[in-house]
């Protein structure tokens, strides 16, 4: 059998990879890609805890589904923002979108 720790470590690794993407990529769309990876890592954890706890308690799956909904909403709004910014500033490089500096 696969122990729970494998899933957790796997999810933590995926989360860290996604975080690296979020922190390091210049392209705003790529940053959103990283966020998706992080959300998936969370979902793996939720599903794993559901499976390794009492399978009759559906909390893990329910929360995973709500994370799906949140992810969909986040992507829709995020990409709309990226496109809107691109239309006005002709760039999607996160470093160049720095109008809010001092």
């Amino acid at each position: 059998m696969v122990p729970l720790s494998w899933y957790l470590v796997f999810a933590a690794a995926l989360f860290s990879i996604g975080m690296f993407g979020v922190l390091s990529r210049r392209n705003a769309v790529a940053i959103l890609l990283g966020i998706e990876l992080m959300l998936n890592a969370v979902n793996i954890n939720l599903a794993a805890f559901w499976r390794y706890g009492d399978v009759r308690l559906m909390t893990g799956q329910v929360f995973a589904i709500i994370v799906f909904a949140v992810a969909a909403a986040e992507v829709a709004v995020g990409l709309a923002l990226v496109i809107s910014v691109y239309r006005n500033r002709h760039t999607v490089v996160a470093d160049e979108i720095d109008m809010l500096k001092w």
Partner: protein
Amino acid sequence: MTTETLIWLIPLPPLLAFFLIVLFTNKSKALSHTIGVGAAALSFIGSMVVFVRALGVEHLGESPFESAVNWLPTGDTWFRIGVLIDPLGAAVLFFVAITILMIFLYSVGYHNYGQPAGDHDVKGLPPHGATITDEHGHKHVVPSVEPMYSRFFAFLGLFAFGMYTLVVSDNLLTLFVGWEIMGLCSYLLIGFWYGKPSARDAAVKAFMTTRIGDVFMLLGIAFLYSATGTLTFREIFTEETLHALASTPAWFGMTTSGFIALLLFIGTVGKSAQWPLHVWLPDAMEGPTPVSAMIHAATMVSAGVYAVIRMFPLLTADYTGHGLTVTMSIVAFIGAFTALFAATIAVAQNDIKRVLAYSTISQLGYMIAALGIGAYVAAAFHLITHAFFKALLFLGSGSVIHGMEHGVLHTGNHHVDPQDMYNMGGLRKKMPITFWTFLIGGFALAGFPLVTAGFWSKDEILADAFGHGHLAVFVTLAIAAFLTAFYTMRQITLTFLGEPRTEEAKHAQETPWTMTTPLIVLAFFAVTYGWVGIPEHFPLLGGLVPNWFHEFVGSTLAEHPEAIEFNPIPLLTSIGVAGGGLILGWLYYRNVKSVSEDKFQIPLLKNKYYFDEAYNFLFVKPAYWFAENIVYKFLDKGVIDGILHAFGPFTQGTGSALRNYIDLPVINRAIGDGSAEITYWFGGKLRAIQTGRVQQYLMLALVTFIVIGAALYFFVLA
């Protein structure tokens, strides 16, 4: 629906109509009057249902319809308000409902609904007529619609609410609330045409004069509440309470009950325009002619009398049957005096409405006098019959004026006063319905024997006065009755009989159905209502119809008043003065062709005994002087302004000291600028980390998070 619930609901439709019209339907005339008349009709139906149910209850006096709710917490107990319909209330509700509905209906026609808007009518002035061109190209001037039509119905609705509240309330406080609402409406309606200075003055005069009475009434209510701890009628009118009140002496040789009754009575003096507070009522005729006048004749001023009738047990609490008490003497005196006094003035007035106004004062005096001598049922009876025929007369006079205005518009001569009786004459052919109904009303007022309601009620008062031995009152009232018949016949003769004295009178026209219908309805009651109260021992007629009114209204009192013995002297007197007055009036004024031929134009009477002038000199002028010299020049300018002017330099000195020595150096320099400079310095140093790049922010946040997390873990958890 239980009768009690229905009673609660009766006053509400007009109030609702008021708010609906004011808030929403002000723009639409048709909608406004539909709502107004509809509300009045709803209340009318409710009242009639209550009345009919009240008739069906035996011993209604002992177990009336009543219902009360807690209203104000007063320490451990509650002040309760509620509704009460006993026989008196039912009888009053009957005539109030009818007359109010009639007012509403009549107003539709009186304000020329359906006519075009005036050529140069403005809000606040009566309509001046509109020019229309017919299909032949001829121009006509026709009556124009009232510019503030909707507002009028709103006011009437509020008035009706006040009146119904007063009638159905079971305690003095809500009665007083209704009373004051009507006072406000009276003010608003007298000043309805606020563009006219005379109307403005009359409104203020009416409001101020009645306010005097109301203050005393409020005092009486307060005294009563402190003495008994309740304002509910049926709790006051218990044997013990009344006895306790009657046996406690107060000031001026009066008992507590008598003193309270006197205070409450002063309220009535103001509301019912009794001498010496009668001066506002004739001026109130400045309002829209028949309608507000009718409020000031049939319903609202009757409310004053109603209040006294209501408080009758209190008034007579210390009355043993032998010799009037001080309070009752005052009441009787004022009533009788007013009856005679107003009647004499009425003889010399030429304005058709003013004659009726003084006649109203006189008739109200009749009722007050009757109450003063303890004739409870007679007063109530006369109250109701008077309401019917006086409403009829006022509406009739409004109809006459309306017809005359038609003539004025026709000739275009606006200098002719359509209210002056010497400009009329011969109108019976032009306005037959108005004439016949006015004749019925006039005869009822004069007390034309046997057929009119006024005869029976007036006769009962006279019989009571004579029967109980109050001869002075009896004689005074008899003379007043003679004068009443005389000036009534004078009015009828001058207005309707003979030949038209002016061009305008020739072109007068009958008024529309909305105005004549109320006349006919009221004329019916002006004749028939008398028959419900024919004394049982009356020759021939007595016993034909049972004396229902006496039985029914009399049962309101705990002690059932006995019908007095029949005596031919008051009857003959009554017939004599009525007939004599009528015949003399006709004989004399038949031949009078103009004002100069009228021998009764005595300056003293013409000028109402100079009461206005006297009040002006005694109260108004001193008040102006006091306001100008004492309050304004001395108190306001000298004392208060002086203090204020002293404040200025003082404050300025203090202020500049504070500014120079505290504000500028300490607060401004050190605290204000100092904190800003410190913030600025820090900002300059710290802004380097505000790069505007989200990823750097996130990195910073994560670094902080990891550092703090690690520190917490190692130092706290481990």
